[in-house]
């Protein structure tokens, strides 16, 4: 061992700073930034294609209208699920045990949203709106489908968190990581709803 590489134990050792954001949460945040850009790309594409639709007919002639009202109600379920998750966080801070029920509620509401969206898809498909039928249909399934994949992924993560919490193993970083992603799924939805449905 050369003298240079060893730090004498007597030297004042600066303290290792505590990270501003825990690594797990930070990683998910960076990932969310990328995801936001992904959805921005989709929305930009949608805006451009919509803008040049023939005669400004959007949706194009002969294509079914989207169920604006029903989906608005359904979106409410998703938003409430997000709000419940906020309460979960504060409950967890006080007592991890108490966080389990709001977490479950949040999962159920999220599942309701995803399930109802699925029902809506089946109905629209039978009405003749498919990815191939027009750019309108293509973008609808692409954007809403991308969101659905993220929602399902986030739900699986939430269920995993619930599983850990029922075993008493859930840490606050884990809950923060998982809920950060669910917040993203919840908060990006109103934007998509505004762009695609309205």
């Amino acid at each position, binding site marked *: 061992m050369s003298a240079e590489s060893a730090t004498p134990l007597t030297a004042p050792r600066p303290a290792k700073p505590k990270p501003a954001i825990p690594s797990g949460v930070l990683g998910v945040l960076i990932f969310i930034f990328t995801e936001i850009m992904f959805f921005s790309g989709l929305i*930009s594409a949608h805006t451009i294609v919509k803008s*040049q639709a023939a005669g400004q007919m959007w949706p194009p002639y002969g294509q079914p209208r989207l169920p604006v009202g029903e989906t608005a109600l359904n979106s409410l379920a998703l938003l409430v699920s997000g709000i419940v998750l906020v309460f979960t966080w504060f409950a967890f801070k006080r007592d991890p045990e108490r966080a389990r029920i709001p977490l479950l509620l949040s999962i159920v509401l999220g599942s309701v949203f995803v399930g109802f969206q699925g029902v809506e898809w089946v109905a629209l498909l039978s009405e003749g709106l498919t990815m191939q039928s027009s750019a309108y249909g293509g973008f609808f399934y692409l954007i809403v489908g991308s969101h659905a994949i993220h929602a399902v992924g986030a739900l699986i993560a939430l269920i995993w968190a619930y599983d850990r919490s029922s075993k008493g193993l859930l840490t606050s970083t884990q809950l923060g990581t998982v809920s950060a992603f669910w917040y993203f799924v919840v908060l990006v939805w109103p934007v998509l709803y505004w762009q695609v449905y309205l």
Partner: protein
Amino acid sequence: MMRVGMSTLLAFLALSALPEALWACPVCFDSSDENRQAFLATTIFLSILPLGMVAGAGIYIRKRVRGSRKNPANTK
């Protein structure tokens, strides 16, 4: 950082010094106006968004770090 600001300022000055006529577009009659505006809007949107996000995150982290230095108990 000041220098970047100066560069931007100079660029804006250079731009505004160019005659207004440069914004005329006699060859633009082939595609619809909405389409051109959509391209412009999404260009601005896509370009600004990442910078806004990073700036926001940067400011937030700075605040957290400052806050934890002042009051280490806070971050626990």
